[in-house]
Structure formats: structure tokens, C-alpha cells
């Protein structure tokens, strides 16, 4: 059964205050139509879990600029002066997480683990308030798993069932986030008949995907 849905109805499922994981790295691999529709519907008080907030006019940065975001959990906001301004002014909460730790926290959330042990951040401000665990002579931090209400995913190609392929560096956090959210919404550049994507090429299996939206195409 096809999972292709209307953009407006799909995004309407997301309530104000929802926790969103959004794929992408500096906007590459961030679903543009889903971001656009979140803005159009005027969502508020979102928590966004993502690698970065890109730039003020790009990708997730557009949500920050529109004051749609209450809290950001990210590894990097250095390329977005507006996120930094809102954080310093106390308008938006920002939790900075080392990038590899963020990836593993999301992965743990999707893989049924409570968290991960990582040496990254030991002895730095990242350690504050976290359990330190020594195993076989190495010190690790216990970093808790992350989950979200919705994951907004950008894929290169989907079939109508929701099997997904990604492209190059636009893959980044997308397959991890597609595992870690209650509802998974995918914006695909192409949506093809079932069977076109060979099983070995599927990165995200269709059972994880709830809704598919096609990336905008210009015809004619």
C-alpha cells in the first residue's frame, strides 16, 4: 500500500511543542518542502534534534529564524549567527553535543539501547552531570539515548512502500533518525514503483517509514 501522502496533511500531524529529529548537515540532506510547510503552518515551540542549524536562511536555520524552535540539540551552531544570538539572549535553549556522540545517542534511541559509553568529552565541560564509568582501564561517559516524536528525513529515492536510498553526503543523520522517532516522514527526490530499488540497495527498510512526500518537481 502506498505511503505517499499530501504534504499539508502530513505536516498537520505535527503538533506545536513536538520533538523533531531532522536529517541533514549544513542543509545537505535536510528535507526542504517539509521545512517550508512547517513554516507555512506556523508551528511553534518545537524541539529540534539535528547536527546543526545550517545558516539563518538555509534548512533548519529557517525554523530558528522564524522563532519556531524552543530547544535545539545539535553539535554545531557556528554557521548560524541567529541561533547563537537566540541562545545568548535566552530565547532558545541550545544543548551542544559532540557530533559523534549525537550520532550514537540517536542510534541508541532507534536500536533499543538506553545509551552509549564514549570516551569523547571526558574531562571537558561535556562531562558535567554525566556518570563516568571506568571499564578495563578506560574512562567513558554515559550518554543517554535520544528519541523523537517525528523524524523528518530526506532520501534520494523511495519506492511506494517506503524503502529508502540516500545519496552521498546527503545521507548523514537520516538513516539513524529514521529509526529513532515515533512517526517517520520522508521527503524523497524520486518515488519509484516497488521493486525498482533492489533489496541490497535499501538503506532504510520500508517498515520504518510512515509517510512519503515527493520533492517538488518542475514539469514541462
Amino acid at each position, binding site marked *: 500500500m502506498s505511503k505517499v501522502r499530501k504534504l499539508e496533511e502530513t505536516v498537520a500531524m505535527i503538533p506545536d511543542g513536538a520533538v523533531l529529529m531532522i536529517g541533514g*548537515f*549544513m*542543509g*545537505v*540532506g535536510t528535507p526542504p518542502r517539509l521545512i517550508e510547510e512547517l513554516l507555512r503552518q506556523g508551528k511553534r515551540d518545537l524541539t529540534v534534534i539535528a*547536527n*546543526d542549524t*545550517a*545558516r539563518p536562511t538555509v534548512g533548519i536555520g529557517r525554523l530558528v529564524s522564524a522563532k519556531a524552535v524552543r530547544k535545539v540539540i*545539535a*553539535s*554545531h*551552531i*557556528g*554557521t548560524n549567527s541567529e541561533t*547563537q544570538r537566540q*541562545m*545568548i539572549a535566552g530565547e532558545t535553549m541550545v544543548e*551542544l553535543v*559532540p*557530533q*559523534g*556522540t*549525537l*550520532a*550514537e545517542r540517536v*542510534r541508541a534511541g532507534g536500536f533499543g539501547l538506553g545509551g552509549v559509553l*564514549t*570516551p*569523547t*568529552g*571526558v*574531562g*571537558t*565541560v*561535556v562531562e558535567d552531570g554525566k556518570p563516568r564509568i571506568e571499564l578495563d582501564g578506560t574512562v567513558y561517559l554515559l550518554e543517554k539515548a535520544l528519541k523523537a516524536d517525528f523524524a523528518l528525513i530526506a532520501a*534520494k529515492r523511495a519506492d511506494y512502500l517506503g524503502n529508502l536510498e*540516500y*545519496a*552521498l*553526503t*546527503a*545521507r*548523514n*543523520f*537520516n*538513516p*539513524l533518525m529514521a529509526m529513532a522517532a515515533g512517526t517517520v516522514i520522508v521527503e524523497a527526490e524520486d518515488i519509484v514503483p516497488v521493486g525498482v530499488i533492489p533489496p541490497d540497495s535499501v*538503506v532504510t527498510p520500508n517498515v520504518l517509514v510512515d509517510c512519503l512526500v515527493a520533492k517538488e518537481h518542475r514539469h514541462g
Partner: protein
Amino acid sequence: MDEKTLIARRVALELRAGNLVNLGIGLPTMVAAHLPAGVDVFFQSENGIVGMAPVPEPGAENEDLSDAGGSPIGAVPGAASFDSAMSFGLIRGGHLDVTVLGGLQVDEEGRLANWMVPGKMVPGMGGAMDLVSGAKRVIVAMQHSAKGTPKIVKRCELPLTSVRRVDLIVTDLAVIEPTDKGLVLRETAPGVTVADVLAQTGAELIVPADVPVMPIG
């Protein structure tokens, strides 16, 4: 030769054929253009690729292929792309031979601070903490001082990137190796004296009897 090119050329001499190498944004990125002849390495970008290369020609950009700063890149034949967990598995899991990063401060214990200036600049650590914690070899490439203020200091005042001791510091004045005993002055830049280096360093330096000039023609 300007100072940044000097640093990039000296760092490039540290790379060996077949290495997997991650270059930070900014000055470290310049290292790729100065590899010695015959030294082929694979460059990793933490957004998920091994085998990054410059965009082959104007117009050949691909919107799905960028570096960690979001700028378009190319890829060498034999490149591989993957998700962020794999990318940091390569970094943290001991599969990355060399990481080259910029620095704000390095201290006598060889500890690097390079991700924030409290109250002024809070960009976030991105991949830096994982890179410094996990790479087999960490090379800091930076100016020796910032507007006259030494960046090599007794103890970092800025928040640390990692407590791991970095392996080498390459600046426009010197090559310095952090060791168990402290910071050892290994080389000076062409035209720079040991006294010049000491005058612009805020930490104790161990100066061997023989300090050669950087082997850069």
C-alpha cells in the same frame, strides 16, 4: 610564502601514503593542496565520506556532495559514503590515522582548546572532540600567537576539546612536540631563531642542543 602556506606545507610532510586523514575547516584544509609527490592519502569528511576531493571543474558541483562546512566537493574514484554513525565510528574507533585541526590554545600538557570562547564565541564542538579523542595522531595547525598573545600557554584557560595529549603542533614559527616531559621544540621556521620562538611562547619549552630548520624549500 605566506604563514598559512608554510604551516600547511610543513603539516603535509607528516602524512604517509595510504593514511586516512581528516582536515579541519580553515587552515587545515590547505594541507590537501601541499601533499608531497607520491604521497596519496584518503581524506575523510565527517559528514560521511572517505575520498573527498576538490570539485573537478566549475559547474560539476553536486547538491548531495559537500564538505563539513557545507561547501561543494568532489570525490576520488574509490570513494565511499556512509552515515554519521559510521563516520564517527571511523574516527572514534581508531581507524583514522591523522586529524589536523586548528587551535585557540595548547598547553604544556599538550591539551587543545579549540571550540569556544565563553561569552564571545559559542559555535559548538562539531566533530572536534571526537576527532581529538579518537584519531591515532592529532596535529594542531595554527598561528603561533594571536595578535601578539601566545596561543601556546602554561594551562588552557579556554574550555578543553579533550584531555588527550596532541601529537604535534605546527605553527608559523615552529614545530613543537608535546611529550611526557613537556613541550619539545623540534624545528624552527626558516628565518626564525629559537629566541624568537621562546619570546612568543607562553609555556615552558624544552630546547634540544640541535633544533633544525623546517625542511621546506
